[in-house]
């Protein structure tokens, strides 16, 4: 009887997963939700790894998405991945905040803990420049100015 319950439960999950609602999960550390499908469009709010959004539309490599708060905006497709099973969507509805447990489970693998263990084993390997490197980040405004002045991207026809 217990096995039957187990089998039926699996079947239920599969059936639920066929829902048409497409949920996307943020796979990068953070990404911006923008009002337009453009990297230089103003930032509405920031999403972080594990956050889930509902996909509404797509356009030129961008997805229009809705958060659980109802906020609608655009995220770049390279920042998110589809969640094939919709179990969670039906069980909880799309949400914007991943729980600590979800983040921890999703992070299981070659992660911070493994790096720390490796560094303990090899104290001679210096990560200071790697950490400094991560701080080399130009602002969106600086990149936009760089492209505009260089007549690149959408400014390529500018005279």
């Amino acid at each position, binding site marked *: 009887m217990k096995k039957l319950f187990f089998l039926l439960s699996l079947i239920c999950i599969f059936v639920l997963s066929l829902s048409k609602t497409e949920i996307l999960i943020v796979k990068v550390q953070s990404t911006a939700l923008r009002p337009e499908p453009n990297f230089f469009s103003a930032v509405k709010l920031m999403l972080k790894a594990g956050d889930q959004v509902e996909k509404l539309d797509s356009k030129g490599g961008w997805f229009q998405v809705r958060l659980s708060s109802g906020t609608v905006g655009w995220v770049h497709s390279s920042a998110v991945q589809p969640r094939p099973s919709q179990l969670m969507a039906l069980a909880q509805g799309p949400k914007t905040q991943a729980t600590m447990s979800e983040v921890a489970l999703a992070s299981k*693998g070659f992660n911070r803990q493994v790096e720390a263990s490796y560094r303990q084993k090899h104290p001679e390997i210096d990560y200071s420049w*790697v950490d400094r490197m991560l701080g080399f980040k130009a602002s969106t405004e600086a990149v936009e100015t760089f492209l505009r002045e260089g007549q690149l991207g959408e400014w390529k026809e500018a005279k």
Partner: protein
Amino acid sequence: MRPCYIFFKALCLAVSFLFLVNCAVTQKGAEILEKTGKITSEDKELITKTSETVRTSFRDLSEEEEYYIGRSVAALILSKYKVWDNSKATNYVNLLTQAVALFSDRPEIYAGYHTLILDTDEVNALAAPGGFIFLTRGLLRLCSDEDTLAGIIAHEIAHISARHGLQAIKKSRLIEAFKLLASETAERFAPERLAQLTNLFEGTLDDIVGQLIERGYDRRSEHEADSLSLTTLQRAAYSPQGMLQFLEALAQTKTKTTSLKGWFSTHPEPMDRYERLKAEVSLVKKQVIIPKVRSSRFQQVASTWK
């Protein structure tokens, strides 16, 4: 055995297989079932284990795993080279990297793209998984303009975007790591498991660093990166002619000396790449006229690395 039981067992296997396509969700689903009392904790662990072992190739590594592998690969590269700490040049190459990345197939990556200049005359460019790019001063000196440098950066971004570095990881090592992960259901690794995983992590780094620094990518990966970078340059409206000129210059440098390390030992023949890229560029009808502002801003920063 009763037909009904066999049917259910087959159905169970089929459903399980479909679920295994998405391990994280499977695990979460199992967690819910356990909480609601539908399955036991043993069943939950079985589902979790099976779903983890479905990860079989480098493609199954998450963005976060790629980032943590890349961090350590970057640290190992930096243990072999000295950094050229020049803020003007570093700011410029990072601005250029982030601008070029927007036109690549993977503009967003776990922690973004970052570039560092290595203080060596060696002509080389290296891309660690996760967005860490290294350019040598020797290579920068060979670049005649911004469009050329944009082409080289686009090429390195293409290696990262296509996950070429991760392909160097021995499959047996990956399988072993995935199996090990499958046996660990706690959020943090137990000491023994962590030690085993650390050894596998170390082997993974050796596989990648060995390819990047000693063996180089295979021809297929290099040609794929060339094609992808050409697309990126076209989207950004950079001239692909610069990349061609660079390969030509590289080929000439090679004929002058055979003792250069770096690019020459890890990349296919520059003339081979030149011929292939030239054929692709010839298909691009529109010629790009490089505006003066691009030339002048490049010359200003290029004076620092001469």
